[in-house]
C-alpha cells in the first residue's frame, strides 16, 4: 500500500491507552491518517496523567480521577478500554484480546508500558493496607488509606515513587519509615553522591530512613490487614499502611510467541521506533514507543536504552506516528535528550541526559548546603547528564552541552560557585544482573535457516 492509499484506507492498532497511546493517536490524525484507528487499553479509564498521582493526588489536593490528559485533537478512534491485549499474531496481523475479540490492523504500535512490581510474597502482598502506586486506582486507594491517619506508613524502596510518597506522608504529618536495600535514596538513577543529599533531605523532614535494610516479612491481623513488618536490622515496626515501591516490570507478556525482541528490558526497536524481531532484524509494520521501547541512542555509545520518562512517551509517540505513515525517505529519528522531574521535601529535582551512564559527578552552580544546585555527570571526558535541585532554570545549559557531546567537566560557570567543585566518583551501584531474562539460543546453519529462539527459564 503506498503512502496516500494507506493514509486513506489503512488500519492502525495502538495497544496501550495512556500518554503514549493517546499522543500517538493524535499525532497520526495530525499526520493526515484518515483510516481506521483502534486503541486498546487494559485500564477502564480514559487516558490520564500519572505524575500527579504520587504528588497532588496522594496529598489529597486533586481527586485521583481528575488527572485526565488534555486532548490535543479529535482522534476518531475505536476505543477498547478495560480490555487487555493477550497476544500478537503477526502472520495474520491481529491483536487478540482478553474478551475473546480480535483487532486486525496493517500497522501496530506497541505502547503497553510498565506496571508496578508487586511485593514478591503473594500472601503478604494480598494483605489489606499493602499498596503499589502506578495507576489512578492505586492512587485513590493509597490516598484514602493515608487520609485515615495510619499510625505509621512503611515505604519499601526509595526510588522516585517511594521518595515522593514519603514526602507526602511528612507533609500530612504522618509517621513514615522508608527502607532501602541500597546505600541511599535515588542512588539508582542519580548515584550515591546525590543519594546522600536525598537521604539528608528525608531525615531532616522527619522520615525514619533505613538504608541497607530490607523487609523480611509483612504480618497481618486476624482480619487480614497488615499490622507489622519485620526488618533485616532486627527491628519490628507497627504499621497500618505499606507502600511497595520496587520499580517496574515491562508489560511484554502478551508478546510471548510474537517473534519480537521483547523481554525483561522491553521491546527492542531502532531509533525510528520500528520494532526488532527476535533475530534483531527490523520489522516494517510494528512500532514501539514509551516506557516499553528500548532503542539505541547515538549519544550513549548506541546502547539500547529504555527511558521511562514523560517526554520520552510524548516525543516517541510523535516519531512513531510519523514513521507509521510517512514515506521511507522522510523517516524521523527519536533522538531524545531525556528529562525528568520530581517534587519532594520542598525541592524541585530535574534531570537531563542519562546520569547513570556517567561515572563521575561535579557540582557546577549553587549551593549544596542550601539545596539549590546544578551538578553534571561525565564519562570518559564527556558530559552525559545533569541534575538540578531547585535550580531547573539552568538545566537547558547542560542539555545543550549534552546534545553537542561537550566536554566533562563542562565549561565552568562565571558566578555562584558551589562550596566544592571537584570531580568525584558519582557512586552508582553496579548494574544489576537481570534474574528473569530468558536465555536466547541461535540455531540453524544456512543463512536462510539461522534464527534465534527464546528458552524461558522456569520461574519458581
Amino acid at each position, binding site marked *: 500500500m503506498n503512502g496516500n492509499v494507506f493514509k486513506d484506507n489503512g488500519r492502525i492498532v495502538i495497544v496501550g491507552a495512556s500518554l503514549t497511546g493517546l499522543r500517538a493517536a493524535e499525532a497520526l490524525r495530525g499526520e493526515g491518517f484518515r483510516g481506521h484507528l483502534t486503541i486498546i487499553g487494559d485500564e477502564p479509564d480514559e487516558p490520564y496523567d500519572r505524575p500527579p498521582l504520587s504528588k497532588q493526588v496522594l496529598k489529597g489536593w486533586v481527586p485521583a480521577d481528575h488527572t485526565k490528559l488534555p486532548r490535543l485533537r479529535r482522534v476518531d478512534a475505536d476505543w477498547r478500554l478495560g480490555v487487555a491485549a493477550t497476544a500478537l499474531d503477526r502472520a495474520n496481523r491481529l491483536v487478540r484480546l482478553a474478551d475473546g475479540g480480535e483487532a486486525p490492523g496493517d500497522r501496530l504500535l506497541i505502547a503497553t508500558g510498565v506496571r508496578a512490581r508487586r511485593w514478591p510474597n503473594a500472601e503478604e502482598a494480598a494483605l489489606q493496607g499493602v499498596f503499589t502506586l502506578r495507576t489512578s486506582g492505586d492512587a485513590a486507594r493509597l490516598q484514602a488509606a493515608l487520609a485515615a491517619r495510619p499510625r505509621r506508613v512503611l515505604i519499601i524502596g526509595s526510588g522516585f515513587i517511594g521518595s515522593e510518597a514519603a514526602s507526602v506522608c511528612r507533609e500530612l504529618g504522618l509517621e513514615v519509615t522508608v527502607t532501602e536495600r541500597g546505600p541511599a535514596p535515588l542512588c539508582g538513577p542519580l548515584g550515591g553522591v546525590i543519594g546522600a543529599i536525598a537521604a539528608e533531605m528525608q531525615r531532616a523532614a522527619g522520615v525514619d530512613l533505613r538504608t541497607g535494610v530490607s523487609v523480611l516479612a509483612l504480618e497481618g491481623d486476624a482480619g487480614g490487614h497488615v499490622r507489622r513488618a519485620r526488618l533485616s536490622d532486627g527491628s519490628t515496626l507497627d504499621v497500618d499502611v505499606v507502600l511497595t515501591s520496587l520499580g517496574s516490570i515491562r508489560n511484554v507478556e502478551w508478546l510471548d510467541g510474537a517473534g519480537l525482541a521483547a523481554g525483561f528490558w522491553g521491546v527492542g526497536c531502532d531509533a525510528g521506533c520500528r520494532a526488532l524481531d527476535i533475530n534483531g532484524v527490523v520489522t516494517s509494520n510494528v512500532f514501539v514507543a514509551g516506557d516499553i521501547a528500548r532503542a539505541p541512542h547515538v549519544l550513549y555509545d548506541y546502547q539500547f536504552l529504555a527511558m521511562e520518562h514523560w517526554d520520552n512517551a510524548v516525543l516517541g509517540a510523535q516519531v512513531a506516528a510519523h514513521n507509521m505513515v510517512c514515506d521511507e525517505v522522510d523517516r524521523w529519528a527519536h533522538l531524545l535528550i531525556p528529562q525528568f522531574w520530581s517534587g519532594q521535601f520542598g525541592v524541585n529535582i530535574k534531570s537531563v541526559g542519562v546520569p547513570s551512564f556517567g561515572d563521575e559527578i561535579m557540582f*557546577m*552552580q*549553587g*549551593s549544596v548546603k542550601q539545596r*539549590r544546585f546544578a551538578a553534571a555527570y561525565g564519562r570518559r571526558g564527556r558530559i552525559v547528564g545533569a541534575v538540578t535541585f531547585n535550580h531547573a*532554570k*539552568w538545566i*537547558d*545549559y547542560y542539555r*545543550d552541552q549534552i546534545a553537542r557531546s561537550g566536554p566533562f567537566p563542562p*565549561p*565552568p*560557570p*562565571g*558566578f*555562584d560557585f558551589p562550596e566544592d567543585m571537584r570531580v568525584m566518583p558519582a557512586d552508582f551501584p553496579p548494574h544489576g544482573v537481570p534474574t528473569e531474562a530468558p536465555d536466547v539460543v541461535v540455531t540453524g546453519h544456512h543463512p536462510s535457516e539461522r534464527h534465534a529462539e527464546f528458552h524461558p527459564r522456569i520461574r519458581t
Partner: protein
Amino acid sequence: MKPDEAFDAAMRYENRANPYPYFDELRKTPVVRVTNGIYAVTGYDELIALAHDPRVSSDRRKAHQPNAAEPQMIDESMVEMMTTYGRDPSFIASDPPDHDRARRQCMRFFGPPHAPDVIPSQEPLCQQIVNELLDKAVSKTRIDVVDEFAYPLPVNVICRILGVPIEDEPQFHAWIADAITGLFDVGPEITTEEGRARRAKGEAANLAFKQYVIGLVEKAEKSPGPGMISQLVHDDGPDGRMSPSEIVNNTMLLFAAGHDSTVNLISHCVLTVLRNPWSIELLRSRPELIPGAVEEVLRLQPSVQFFPTRSALTDIDIAGTTIPRGSPIYLIYAAANRDPRRFTDPDTFDPQRRDNEHVGFGSGIHICFGGPLARLEVNTAFEAFLRRVENPRVVEDPPPYRISQVFRGPRQLLIDYDRISPERR
C-alpha cells in the same frame, strides 16, 4: 552592509520607527561583533542559549570597563547609574546568588506563592481607569493614545502596588522620562552636543529620582504603610531584609519598568491593529483572541528591544563565533523575535499564531519580573479600546518615536475615530 553599519543604522534615531530591516541584516551572522566590541545576538536559538548560559553575566562591574576616550562609549553613564549610586545594584544588573535572593525577596510581595492575589486584585482598578479614560474621550474625535490612554493606567497601578503617592506623578514622570532619554540612548547621537546635554539632563533626573525614592524608603522605615516599598523595608522573610541600597535600586527598577514599558506595549497594540484594519473586526467579534494578539505584538514590537547589561565572563564559542572574555553582549529580543528559522512569516502580524514562544519578555533568570502584571494591564486596555472605540484611524504613520532604542515606543500616537460607545454597566 557590514555588521557595524547595520548595527549603527539600527541604533540611529532616524530608524527608530523601523529598525527591523537592519536587524535582519545583522542576523545574517546570528552572533556578530559590531561597534565598540559589542557582540550583537540576533538569532533566536543563539539568544536562548546565551540567556541560559552561566558564563554570561548581567553585572556590569564584571565587564571590561569601557574606554572613555572612545567615541560612542555610550554605556558609561549606565554603568555609573547602576553602580556608583548604590553599593548594590538592582537584580536586573546582578548575578546569582545575589540576583536570585533579591528577586525572591521582591517576588514575596508581588506574586505566587506568597502573594498570589496582588496582580489579579488590580483588575477592577485597571477596568475602572481604562473606562474613565475612554469616557473622557467621548466628546472628542481625536486623542493621543500615548498620553491620554496608554500612560495613566500603568502608572496608577504601579504606584498602588509599590506605595508611591500618585500626587507626585508630574515630578517623577519627568524624571523617569529624562533618565530614559538620556541614559538609555546607546546610539551614535548621544555623542553630539545635543546628546551630551540629554545625557547630563538624564543623569541629573536620575539622581533626583533616586533622592525621591530614598525619601520614600526613609518614610516607610519610620511609618509603615501599604505597598511593596514598606514591605521590603520591614521584610522578615527567610532571606532577611535587603540592604537599603538594594531596596532603593530595586524600587527604582520596578517603578521605572512598571511605568514605561507597558505604555509602549499598549501603544504598539493599538498601532499594530490600526495598520492591520482587518484584525480589528476579527478581535472585536472574537475577543477571546485578544490575549494571543497581545503576545503577537510582544513578538513584533517588544517594549524592551534588548538590555545592555550582559557580558562574557570567559571566552564563549557559539554559532561559529568566539565571544572573547569581557565583551559586552546585546541579546536583541526584537531581532530574535523575527528570526525566520524560528517563526514562519516573521514580519506578519498573525493574532492567531499558534507557535509563538517569543522572547518579548526576555528569557532565562532575568525574564521580565512584571510580565504577568503587564499582561493584565495591556489586555484590559486593549480589550476596552477594541470594544468601545469605533472606526479608529491612525493620523500619522509612522508616529514620532521616543529617543531610546532600549525602551522603544511612540512618543505620540494620534488617532481619529467616529465615536466612543458607552461602557456596558
